[in-house]
């Protein structure tokens, strides 16, 4: 195992989603990078506040769908027309209309897999452990709390950041430190 590199974050809770989004935008304008918001449901304007680029999920889904489409067509044609051609009730060996349903289904299936695994991959999930889970207070992030994390160099004084956050309306602020992702 390589030497443990530690990361730490300043976590701040806000009263309402609007305050959180506001605070995030302002912190970003101040030049803080790598921030993240935590909320029980998506924040209106949250992505813009964090300055995230458009999601890649649709593209992955499209790739998945196209893969499904070609896989299905190729599979059916190869299996029933070339590898073991059989006279089935006098139907043409290449019965394209009959290939349609499976082609559609496989496209959907692969697209759905693309979406699901794309989502997991882009979100770096599953991730059974994360340092923020160490903070008991942070548990409200999934129920009714609205949090902002600001990365912060380990060992340095976080007071400045804490103050700024408090100024933006944070109700409570903590610092967590953990293993680098």
């Amino acid at each position: 195992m390589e030497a443990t590199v530690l990361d730490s974050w300043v976590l701040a809770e806000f009263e309402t989603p609007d305050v959180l989004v506001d605070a995030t935008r302002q912190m970003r304008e101040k030049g803080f990078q790598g921030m993240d918001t935590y909320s029980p449901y998506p924040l209106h304007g949250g992505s813009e506040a964090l300055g995230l680029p458009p999601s890649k999920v649709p593209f992955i889904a499209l790739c998945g769908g196209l893969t499904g489409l070609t896989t299905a067509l190729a599979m059916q044609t190869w299996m029933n027309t070339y590898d073991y051609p059989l006279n089935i009730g006098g139907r043409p060996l290449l019965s394209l209309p009959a290939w349609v349903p499976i082609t559609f289904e496989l496209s959907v299936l692969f697209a759905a897999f693309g979406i699901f695994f794309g989502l997991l991959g882009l979100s770096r999930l599953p991730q059974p452990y994360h340092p923020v889970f160490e903070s008991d207070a942070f548990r409200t992030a999934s129920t009714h709390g609205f949090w902002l994390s600001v990365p912060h160099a380990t060992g340095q004084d976080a007071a400045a950041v804490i103050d700024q956050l408090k100024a933006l309306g944070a109700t409570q602020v903590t610092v967590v430190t953990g293993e680098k992702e």
Partner: protein
Amino acid sequence: MAETAATPLDPLEPRDLIPPHHDDKSLNETLLDHVWRKPGKGWFMLFGLTLSALGLLVVGVTYTLARGIGVWGNNQPVGWAFDIINFVWWVGIGHAGTLISAILLLFQQKWRTSINRFAEAMTLFAVMCAGLFPLLHTGRPWFAFWLFPYPSTLGAWPQFRSPLVWDVFAISTYLTVSALFWFVGLIPDLAALRDSSKTKLQRTIYGLFALGWRGSGRHWHNYKIAYLLLAGLSTPLVVSVHTIVSFDFAVSLLPGWHATIFPPYFVAGAVFSGFAMVITLIVPARKYLGLRDVITDRHLENMNKVILATGLIVSYGYMMEHFIAWYSQNQFEFWTFYVNRATGPYAGVYWLMIACNVITPNIFWFKKCRTSVPIMWVASIAVNIGMWCERFIIIVTSLSQDFLPSSWGIYTPTWVDWCIYIGTLGLFGTLFLLFLKFVPAVAISEVKELQLELKHAAHQKSHGAH
């Protein structure tokens, strides 16, 4: 206040969609309450009931596997009966869940949030029940894997012109995508469960399923689009699945099966029966879970409107089948629709179907019926029965009298048929009760989000009024 009530935001979104006296925290508590609370006596009684019905399934399936499907009533002209009836019936029920969840999401129908989780769970369990039948109905289920394209040492492949292979792909895709959709929707709530759990064990288990969800802005960023895309995929999927199920019949040449109207009419029928099943389940569930505030009368009324609309489409389907049989003057078709179904050995089932599917939904033209909980509950059960009868009529009646009168025959179900049917009801009920116990029955994060939106909207509106 009274004025805002008179002019709701949109026709489907009345003021009482969610009553305003909950904040996020109390919503959380209310909606998770049934998970943390010890289940009541009623739950245990119901669970006992469904478990014993599940026992019947075990008995029926074991006996079938041991002796062969000869223990069912299926016979020479009637090769399919309860097996495929139940399959189609369950798949149909499943469809409402996806539709409620996906189509309403796409159309941004806000009232869906209260019932979508519920409906999706119903889909999942109904498709599981449905999936049992294609497997069980084969003479040699231990070779059912031959329907999958895998490189066997035989050098043989599945036959892709067969609607049964389409079924395999459709049903497995449907089950997979529904499960993904349901699970993706559940992740934030699982995180909520993890974070409001009281014991270490609960926290670990829910934590495992939550996959480490933290509600991060980056997560939500991908999540929102992923969820919407899944919904977008589910919608055509649901249509395609029941279309393919209807191909099982439409692709054949049997009078009563061979009809191009089958796909739309099957899909409408599926929605029809699915919404009826949602009503059947949600009426007692919201009472038991105390979710009146979240699943409101308005929700129920909207669903009844869907039942009415789809019921009319189904009636139109029946009408067209009969019209075409008359118009074509095809001797075999004519016999099937005008002699066999209406006056043949299964005429009783036919007229029950007409009563349940054609006549019953028409009561929902009246607001009184749409809003009366007891009436709609009884009507929904009637529709469930009617839709089961419809499958019986399509499958058994058409098969029992086809082209050559010499081979006509009568089908009578055996006790094993009934055991397995009731057994799947038990399986469905058991899974559903477990779902109610362990998973939030309402999509909490969505309700919270919706509440915020409503608040914003109300706020803007009141601002605008000033």
